[in-house]
């Protein structure tokens, strides 16, 4: 009885799993078809299969360039967020005063403000000082994403005993040495979480970079949006482009799945 019900559950699970994968199947198979092939049947396997779509969309997307831009912007922004927010969280957590409580509240309250409510003056201001480029964008990500990161670091820091700081101080370390040599390494598990959450958000972001970046610095989502506009109704090219842009994300997911699930859980539950 028990065994049979397990089998039923496994079969139901497999069916739902297939349903969940169906969009990926559609995109992947149709991206290898000729326009005629797609018109003849969208549901069948590609016959004959062609790789031309990939060659063409790879060029049209300037894939190497946009991948590089995405990588530079994501990695630099995330590093900046990790260093600056853990520093801020450390200062706030180790200082027990009304001031630090008030500052923490300030950071947390900024999470209430949706992006659309600040975007127009923000881009106008940064445009005024010629910072509508990837460096300005990294700084903006620090502003938008530091609050959640500080909040997460803050929680972990409270479990690191003050004795750690004091022991290092006795041995003659100054504040910066204590932070970089003692505290930051102990925050590693939370740093993974902070990194994962920010990598996913920044890599996939569209609206902010679309208002900030010049065309030469376009990331994958931006390039994809332009590309799609150019090739509407040419699904064979569009689908190859979509598949190309999804591949890096899937690879990252396969590689870091365990940490991703942990990070996402931490970020939502804490």
């Amino acid at each position, binding site marked *: 009885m028990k065994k049979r019900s397990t089998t039923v559950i496994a079969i139901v699970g497999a069916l739902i799993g297939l349903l969940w994968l169906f969009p990926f199947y559609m995109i992947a198979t149709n991206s290898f078809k000729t326009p005629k092939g797609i018109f003849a049947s969208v549901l069948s396997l590609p016959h004959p299969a062609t790789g031309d779509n990939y060659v063409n969309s790879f060029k049209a997307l300037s894939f190497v360039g946009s991948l590089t831009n995405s990588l530079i912007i994501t990695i630099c922004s995330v590093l900046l967020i990790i260093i600056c927010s853990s520093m801020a969280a450390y200062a706030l957590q180790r200082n027990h005063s009304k001031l630090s409580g008030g500052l923490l509240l300030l950071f947390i309250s900024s999470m209430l403000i949706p992006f659309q409510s*600040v975007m127009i003056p923000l881009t106008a201001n940064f445009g005024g000082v010629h910072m509508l480029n990837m460096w300005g964008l990294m700084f903006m990500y620090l502003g938008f994403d530091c609050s959640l990161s500080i909040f997460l670091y803050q929680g972990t820091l409270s479990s690191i005993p003050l004795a750690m700081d004091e022991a290092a101080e006795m041995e003659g370390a100054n504040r910066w040495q204590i932070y970089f040599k003692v505290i930051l390494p102990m925050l590693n598990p939370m740093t993974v979480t902070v990194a994962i959450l920010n990598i996913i958000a920044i890599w996939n972001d569209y609206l902010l970079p679309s208002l900030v970046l010049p065309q030469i610095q376009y990331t994958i989502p931006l390039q994809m949006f332009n590309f799609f506009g150019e090739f509407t109704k040419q699904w064979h090219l569009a689908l190859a482009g979509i598949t190309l842009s999804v591949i890096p994300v899937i690879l990252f997911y396969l590689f870091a799945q365990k940490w991703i699930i942990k990070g996402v859980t931490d970020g939502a539950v804490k």
Partner: protein
Amino acid sequence: MKNRSLSFWLFLTPTLVALALVVFIPMLEGLFYSFTDWDGLSFTKMVGFKNYITLLQDKAFVNAFWFTVAFVIVTVILLNVIGLGLALLVTQKFKGSNFLRAIFFMPNMIGGLILGFIWQFIFTQGFDALGSALHLSWLQNWLTNETTGFWGLVIVTVWQMSGYIMIIYIAYLQNIPNEVIEAAEIDGASPWQRFTKITFPMIAPAFTVCMFLTLSNGFKIYDQNLSLTNGGPYNSTQMLAMDIVNTAYNASNFSLAEAKAMVFFLIVAAISLVQVLYNRRREVDL
């Protein structure tokens, strides 16, 4: 660290400066501009509540508001039901349950923009083909009217976020001690009784977390809206976030867009504040 120590402030400087320049100053400027005739560069005079009155009479904004409300109600229900269902499914012990968990979460890794494009193909091409093969006319011509645009957005969001909600429910489900379930089993409780009398009450906090998360995410959706329907046909599927962006950058009505953005802020902030108050009250009750 002391308040007056130099290192305290140095540690805080980068984030405080970024927060001020990126969030708080633009927010205050926006609030100010919403009471002027700002054109994106300069303003000539204060206009009082004129922009807010215009906004209430703006058909696009009112439509977007109700469309978004309907979307949020439907997705909050569906995401929680399906997310919890998937969580219960993959926490059963069977071969491949971990693999399934990975599959369900996967769409969450892909950005809303690209997800919208993926589903645009499925709705317009895949559904059409299925519809004509199975002679089901309701599968045809998706995204060409408000109804199918609405359900298209719902399906994309459910497909994307269910796995995320599932992960949160799993975290709480795993906190239920096994002994409790086993004891109930020995006492002869049916699976349905075990779920309603034990599992469900014990994951009630997860329900609160997920409900507010889906609520505030639903209001803020933009990317999927842009790439799936682009608000069309005739702005009928335009959501709040998109209406603000279009008012500013397509219609160049910056002061009106700012007024809309402030109303948008009030809605989103109210949801979060209700959540905070609710959690605080519950903690007191415990």
